[in-house]
C-alpha cells in the first residue's frame, strides 16, 4: 500500500506544474497588462518610458521562460510574491477571502450531509414507493435549480415575509458569530441544496447496490437486527462513493462560487478571481489558480487515501 500511496502522492506534482504552465500562458494571452490598465485613465499623459519602467519593476520585461521559472521557484518555496495591483503580499490578499469561502463551503457541506444521507437511505430502502419518487424529484430539482437564483429567491422571501435583509457586510466568525451566521447561512443553504442533491442521489444508488450484496442477505438470514444491518453493514459500505462526491463538491465550492458570492455580496475567492483577471494582476491570478487547483488535487488525493484505508482490497495490494 505504501508504494501505491507514494506514487499517488508524487503524481500530484506534475499535475500542479501543468496547471501552473497553463495559467501562466492563459493569463498572458489575454490582451492588456496590469501596467497598461493602471494608466488607462490618463493614457497619453504617461510616456512609453514610464510604462516600460513599471513593467521592468514587475519583471515583465524578462523573457517568458525566465518569468515562469522565477515564479515556479517562488511557489515551490511557498512565496507567491506581491499583488501587482495593490502591492501587498498575496497571502494578505487571499487570507480573509479564503476564510470566507472555506466557511461557506463547510456550512454548505453540513447542510448537504444532514439532508442527503437520511433522504438517500430512506429512498433506497423504500425503492419505487412514493417516498422514493418524492426524494428523487426533490433531488433532481436540486440539480436543476441555479444556486444563484435560489439565493435571489431567498433574499426576496426574507424581504417580503420578514421585511428583513441578511447583513450585506461581512463579519468574521471570531468577531461576532451570530452576525456572521445570519449572513452566511443563506448562501450556504442556496448552495447546499444543489450539493445535497448530488449527495442524495449517490447515497441512494450506493445503498441500492449494497443492499443487494450477499453479505446483507447473510446478515438478514442470521436474524440480525435490521437497524444493525443498515448501520454496520450497509451504510458503512455505501459511504465510500458518497464520501467521494462530497469531497469533490467541497473542493469545487472553495473557488467556484463566483455567482452566488455576487448575489449575496460576499467577498470570497470567487469574486477575487474576477477582480484579479480584470486587473490583469498576474501574480494574484496565478496564486489563486494554484490554490484552487491544489485544494482540488489534494482532496482527490485524500479521497484515494480514504479508499486505500477503508477498502481492504486496496489496502493489502
Amino acid at each position, binding site marked *: 500500500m505504501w508504494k501505491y500511496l507514494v506514487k499517488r502522492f508524487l503524481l500530484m506534482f506534475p499535475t500542479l506544474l501543468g496547471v501552473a504552465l497553463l495559467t501562466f500562458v492563459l493569463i498572458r494571452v*489575454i490582451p492588456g497588462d496590469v501596467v497598461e490598465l493602471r494608466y488607462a485613465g490618463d493614457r497619453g499623459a504617461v510616456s512609453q518610458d514610464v510604462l516600460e519602467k513599471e513593467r521592468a519593476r514587475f519583471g515583465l520585461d524578462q523573457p517568458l521562460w525566465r518569468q515562469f521559472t522565477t515564479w515556479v521557484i517562488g511557489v515551490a518555496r511557498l512565496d507567491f510574491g506581491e499583488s501587482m495591483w495593490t502591492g501587498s503580499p498575496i497571502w494578505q490578499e487571499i487570507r480573509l477571502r479564503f476564510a470566507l469561502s472555506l466557511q461557506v463551503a463547510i456550512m454548505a457541506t453540513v447542510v448537504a450531509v444532514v439532508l442527503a444521507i437520511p433522504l438517500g437511505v430512506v429512498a433506497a430502502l423504500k425503492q419505487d414507493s412514493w417516498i422514493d419518487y418524492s426524494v428523487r424529484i426533490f433531488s433532481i430539482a436540486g440539480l436543476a435549480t441555479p444556486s444563484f*437564483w435560489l439565493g*435571489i429567491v431567498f433574499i426576496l422571501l426574507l424581504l417580503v415575509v420578514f421585511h428583513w435583509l441578511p447583513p450585506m457586510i461581512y463579519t468574521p466568525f471570531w468577531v461576532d458569530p451570530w452576525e456572521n451566521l445570519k449572513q452566511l447561512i443563506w448562501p450556504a443553504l442556496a448552495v447546499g441544496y444543489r450539493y445535497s442533491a448530488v449527495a442524495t442521489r449517490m447515497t441512494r444508488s450506493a445503498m441500492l447496490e449494497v443492499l443487494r450484496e450477499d453479505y446483507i442477505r447473510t446478515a438478514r438470514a442470521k436474524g440480525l437486527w435490521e437497524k444493525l444491518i443498515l448501520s454496520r453493514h450497509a451504510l458503512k459500505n455505501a459511504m465510500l462513493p458518497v464520501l467521494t462526491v462530497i469531497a469533490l463538491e467541497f473542493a469545487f465550492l472553495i473557488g467556484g462560487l463566483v455567482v452566488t458570492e455576487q448575489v449575496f455580496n460576499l467577498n470570497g475567492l470567487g469574486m477575487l478571481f474576477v477582480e484579479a483577471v480584470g486587473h490583469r494582476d498576474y501574480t494574484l491570478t496565478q496564486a489563486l489558480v494554484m490554490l484552487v487547483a491544489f485544494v482540488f488535487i489534494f482532496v482527490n488525493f485524500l479521497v484515494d487515501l480514504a479508499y486505500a484505508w477503508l477498502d481492504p482490497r486496496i489496502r493489502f495490494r
Partner: protein
Amino acid sequence: MAIGRPAEAAAEIPETTGRRGWLAVVVEFCRKRPLGAIGAAVVVVNILVGIGANVIAPYDPLATDYGAMLARPSATHWLGTDAFGRDVLARIIYGSRTAMLVGFACAFLGATIGAVIGVASAYFAGKVDLLVQRVMDIFLAFPLIILALAVVSILGTGIGNVIVAIAIPMIPRAALVTRSSALAIREMPYVDAARAAGFRHRRIIMRHMLPNVMAPYLIMLTAYLGQAILAEASLTFLGLGVSEPTPAWGLMLRGAAVQFAEAAPWMAIFPGLAISLAVFAFNLFGDSLRDALDPRLRAQ
C-alpha cells in the same frame, strides 16, 4: 411445427428492427418510465418553443414600451414586463432558443471530443494513455471560471465563445468516463481482428470502438445538456456569457431583476423557473435513459 418455427421467428425480426420497432421502443420507454417520458416531453416542447419563438412569442423580445415599465403580470403581459417595458414571456420564449442552442452544442462538443480522446487513450494504452491522463488531470483541476474569463477576455462575449468556454471543461470528464468503458472494449476479439486485418488506428477507433461506447456517451450527453444550460445562465449572469440584445435567461436575471426584486419579483422569478424547468426535464429524461441503458441498473 418444427419447420414452422424458423419462419415465425424470421417474421418477427423486421418488427424489432424496422420503423415500427423504433416506435415500439419509444412506447415501451414511456410505459416503463413515465417520469422520463414527462421529461422528454418537456424537452421536446422546449425545443419547439425555441425553434418557433418568432411565431409563438406574443411580443418582440426587444421592443421597449416605456408606458408599461415593470408592469405586473396581466392579460396583456402574462408574466409582466421588465424595467424597459419588454415582455417577460416573450423574452423567456426567445431565451429558450439560446439555452437550447448552447445546451446542445456544448453537450455534443464536450461529450464527443471527450469520447474520442478517451477511446483513443484506452486504445493506444501505455505512454500515450499516461500522458493523456495527466493532461486531462490538469484540465480537471483548472477552475472553470478562470477558463471562461480567459476565453471571454480573449475572444469576447457571444454565443460561440460561451459554447467553447463551457465545452472545454466537459471534455476531460467525458474522456475519463469513456476511457474506462473503452478499456474493456479494447480487449474484445473484434478489436484484435481489426488490428490483425491491418486496419489503421483511426479506423479501428472510429468504426470499431467508438460505436461500442454509445451507452455511456448518450448518458453523458443528456447529463451535460442540463449542466451546460446552468453554466450558460451563470456565466451570462456574471456578464461573461451571452450579451445584450440576445435574449437569454441568465441575462434576464442580471442587473435590474435583482435591483427591482421587491417591486417586480416576476422579473427575477420567471426566468429562474424557466432555467430550472428546462434543466429538470433534461435530468429527468437523462436519468431514465441511464436506467434503461446501463446494464447494471437494468438487471435489477
